[in-house]
């Protein structure tokens, strides 16, 4: 019996806890779409997509631990790198003479 299948109480395992947490993270990430669509400025939209990407990384890590698929973490690492590159690139190239960092 591994740690993921350990029962916390009444048949509710650690894997179930991580899956419920992943579902709640998904609903919080969907809430970000409000700002990504309605945001009055472009920077608001980039910021909302950046937060959404961070949530996606966390969801991938939680699912990888809960379902016993450790290679999800590789995808999460690549996603985190691309998310950072996206924010930096957009904020650098939308400004004239962009020296944002």
């Amino acid at each position, binding site marked *: 019996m591994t740690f993921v299948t350990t029962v*916390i109480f009444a048949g509710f395992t650690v894997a179930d806890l991580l899956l419920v947490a992943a579902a*709640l993270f998904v609903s919080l990430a969907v809430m970000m779409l409000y700002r990504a669509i309605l945001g009055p400025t472009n920077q608001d939209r980039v910021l909302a997509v950046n937060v959404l990407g*961070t949530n996606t990384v966390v969801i991938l890590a939680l699912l990888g631990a809960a379902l016993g698929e450790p290679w999800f973490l590789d995808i999460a690492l690549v996603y985190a790198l691309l998310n*950072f590159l996206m924010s930096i690139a957009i904020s650098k190239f939308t400004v004239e003479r962009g020296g944002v*960092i």
Partner: protein
Amino acid sequence: MIETIRIGLVVVAVVLGLFFTFVSATGVIRLPDVFSRAHTASQADTLGAGFALAAVALTLGWEPATVKTVLLLVFIFVTNPTAAHAIARAAYEEGIEPWTTGDERR
């Protein structure tokens, strides 16, 4: 005994991660302008992601995958505030005025 402590730590880290991510989501939706939203996105969201990834690392235990999780945690702690700073600075250089008391929400 040690297993009970480990389960307790996982539950606490997951709940704290969810709480801080909820605070960050509320801030990004409710706060009045792009600079205050960048503030909540850089701090509360980084802490929430850190707690959730710590829970994942505790769940995995001593495995090669744990090293990747810790790397991911350190990477997010470094890059998330940097990205929010770059976005806020791009907004400032585009000439967006910061919100002050009495202005309407944007």
